[in-house]
């Protein structure tokens, strides 16, 4: 019978001193570790860093300010996130085929990614055919939208449109609903790409009006939706573009909150709306990088800051105004072309960060996104990843499971300070609109992108298969791409030409003239005039061309 060994419980200070001695003896020269946002990360966190004594100020309970632990009382234990896979490919018929499959499989939401030609404000008959339908669906007319949504009950399905200013896709959708006798009041969904400032600085994919015009059209669009499509979310503030453009996670969160502050100010001070009327409509969209703890802390801190902004800056009283609702997308920037199946592991970690960060809706990147437009097989794995995390790993059983971790709480506080510093910098520059106009934000992004790349080049940041653990012949069998058939695109162009010939030309002309007048008046709602034009048969390209002419084109502010 062995004699049990009894250990006296050492005092905290004594134990800490002893650990430090042992740690230093064994580690040799310690390295300084910093996360992507530049915060130094220590080897251990203890009650010295966070002791829970400010629990109520810093955390509280989910569903109540400061919302650190989540914006709803039940969080993922009640309702998990919406699994939103973005789709868009080829012709309207191709798209329709895919979404009918998805709806048959039980989906209640759909998303529409238009072709880049649509993003850029052109009709198919204005573009090089090689590029058409390769990244999304070609939708230019009411006829196209009608075919995209054939057999879909518009009153029952929520639609996310990747629809930048001037929101023609929404206009086409509204006209299709009208034709089918579906009341606008039953239409639900989101304008996913309404954040013109983020397009302006970080992502030059989108059709852009010159800044003053873009500002005007967004506000008109939001007001139109508030009044006429109550189930619509007209605004999503897109932090993803910032982070993909090079911002660190803290910068991305700070710039996104500054953008939201700008839009809220424009609506509340500029247009005289009550804060509690507009703020509940704000939603956010973020990139989730693989820097796991940093991302969790980014989202927790973001929630805390937003409720403070809503209450303190804007005086919002309604709790719905305080809630920081966000969609997360696992970051494509972290994915590698080398050993591409490894991307499944990366997306899994990113998705976990999003879940622990408390997101409301998520898109997990397919592992082959870095190689091409995702294939169907890879998209299925992305869905399965989420199902596995939820059903098998039980990640959603406990609300905010990392809450109370000495490290996570300390990091959340430190990220909060970093984010606040970014917001203060933008405030000092005169707000986000001004900071984008002068190129300040672009410079910040460029510098951070280069700094990160230099860490990769130097090996300080390791990327498996790229600068570490490389293998010869890394190529895997990548499934063949589905480039749309040239004949199908030729037919699509021919169909649009016929559409333009067959419509009531005088009515179209009048509606486009009306759009031009609205753009030049100070009182008309420009988005209302976009809907009118779509109703009269005008196409996306014609509507964009009219506004480009009247409001000016938002040329790229290139800051090399």
């Amino acid at each position, binding site marked *: 019978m062995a004699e049990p060994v009894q250990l006296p419980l050492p005092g905290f200070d004594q134990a800490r001193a002893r650990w430090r001695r042992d740690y230093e003896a064994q580690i040799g020269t310690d390295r300084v570790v910093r996360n992507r946002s530049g915060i130094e990360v220590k080897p251990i966190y203890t009650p010295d860093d966070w002791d829970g004594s400010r629990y109520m100020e810093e955390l509280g309970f989910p569903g109540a300010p400061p919302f650190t632990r989540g914006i709803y009382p039940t969080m993922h234990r009640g309702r998990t996130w919406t699994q939103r896979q973005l789709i868009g490919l080829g012709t309207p018929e191709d798209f329709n085929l895919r979404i009918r499959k998805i709806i048959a499989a039980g989906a209640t939401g759909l998303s529409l990614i238009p072709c880049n030609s649509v993003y850029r404000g052109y009709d198919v008959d204005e573009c090089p055919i090689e590029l058409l339908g390769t990244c999304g669906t070609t939708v230019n007319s009411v006829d196209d939208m009608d075919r995209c949504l054939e057999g879909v009950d518009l009153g029952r399905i929520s639609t996310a449109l990747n629809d930048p200013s001037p929101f023609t896709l929404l206009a086409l959708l509204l006209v299709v609903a009208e034709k089918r006798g579906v009341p606008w009041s039953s239409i639900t969904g989101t304008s996913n790409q309404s954040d013109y400032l983020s397009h302006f600085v970080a992502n*030059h994919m989108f059709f852009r009006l010159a800044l003053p015009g873009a500002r005007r059209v967004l506000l008109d669009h939001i007001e139109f939706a508030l009044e006429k499509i109550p189930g619509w979310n007209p605004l999503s503030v897109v932090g993803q573009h910032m982070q993909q453009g090079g911002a660190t996670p803290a910068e991305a969160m700070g710039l996104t909150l500054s953008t939201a502050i700008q839009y809220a100010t424009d609506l509340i001070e500029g247009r005289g709306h009550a804060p509690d009327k507009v703020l509940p409509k704000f939603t956010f969209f973020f990139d989730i990088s693989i820097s796991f703890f940093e991302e969790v802390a980014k989202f927790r801190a973001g929630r805390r800051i937003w409720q403070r902004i809503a209450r303190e800056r804007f005086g919002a009283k309604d709790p719905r105004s305080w809630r920081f609702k966000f969609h997360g997308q696992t970051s494509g920037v972290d994915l590698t072309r080398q050993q591409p199946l490894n991307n499944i592991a990366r997306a899994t970690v990113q998705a976990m960060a999003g879940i622990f960060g408390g997101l409301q809706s998520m898109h997990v990147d397919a592992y082959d996104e870095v190689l091409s437009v995702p294939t169907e097989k890879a998209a299925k794995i992305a869905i399965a990843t989420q199902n596995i995390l939820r059903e098998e790993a039980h990640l959603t059983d406990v609300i905010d499971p990392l809450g109370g971790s000495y490290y996570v709480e300390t990091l959340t506080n430190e990220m909060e300070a970093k984010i606040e510093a970014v917001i203060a910098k933008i405030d000092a520059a005169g707000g986000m609109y001004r900071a984008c106009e002068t190129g300040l934000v672009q410079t910040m992004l460029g510098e951070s992108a280069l700094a990160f*790349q230099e860490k990769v080049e130097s090996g300080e940041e390791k990327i498996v298969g790229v600068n570490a653990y490389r293998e010869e012949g890394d190529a895997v069998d990548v499934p063949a791409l589905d480039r749309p058939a040239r004949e199908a695109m030729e037919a699509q162009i021919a169909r649009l030409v016929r559409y333009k010939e067959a419509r009531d030309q005088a009515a179209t002309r009048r509606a486009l003239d009306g759009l031009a007048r609205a753009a030049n008046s100070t009182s008309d709602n420009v988005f209302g005039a976009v809907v009118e034009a779509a109703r009269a048969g005008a196409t996306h390209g014609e509507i964009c061309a009219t506004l480009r002419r009247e409001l000016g084109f938002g040329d790229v502010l290139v800051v090399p």
Partner: protein
Amino acid sequence: MTERPPKILVTKIGFDGHDRGSRIVAAYLRDAGMDVVYTGPWQQIPAVVKLALEEDIDVLGISSLATDHLLVPKLIEALREAGLGHIPVVVGGIVPPEEEPALRAAGVAAIFHPGASREEIVAEVGRLARLARAAVEGDV
């Protein structure tokens, strides 16, 4: 006679505008001592040809993250027609493996995939620039 540093055009054609990559590459080449003519995205092919001609560039770099590389064969054709067939065209970004052969066949001199290192890019662009310059000096 003074040496002119390699002169590189870094540009984007087609629809996509993500310029994080092209900005980083432009900075790399500048830091390696090259002159970089930098444009924004969305350049039209005739404009790129005119620019390449006026600037007398040594290498033309196209950054493509979506499907803009599909236009590169047209660009190379247009360069040839303008008498600029000697300018090597390189593509950086996302090029699906099965579309590489078509680009090579069209005359693309190098393709840099995500993860290509700074040294690799700088060395290859520098090498191509010297070859192109030598070819021009030989024929005037």
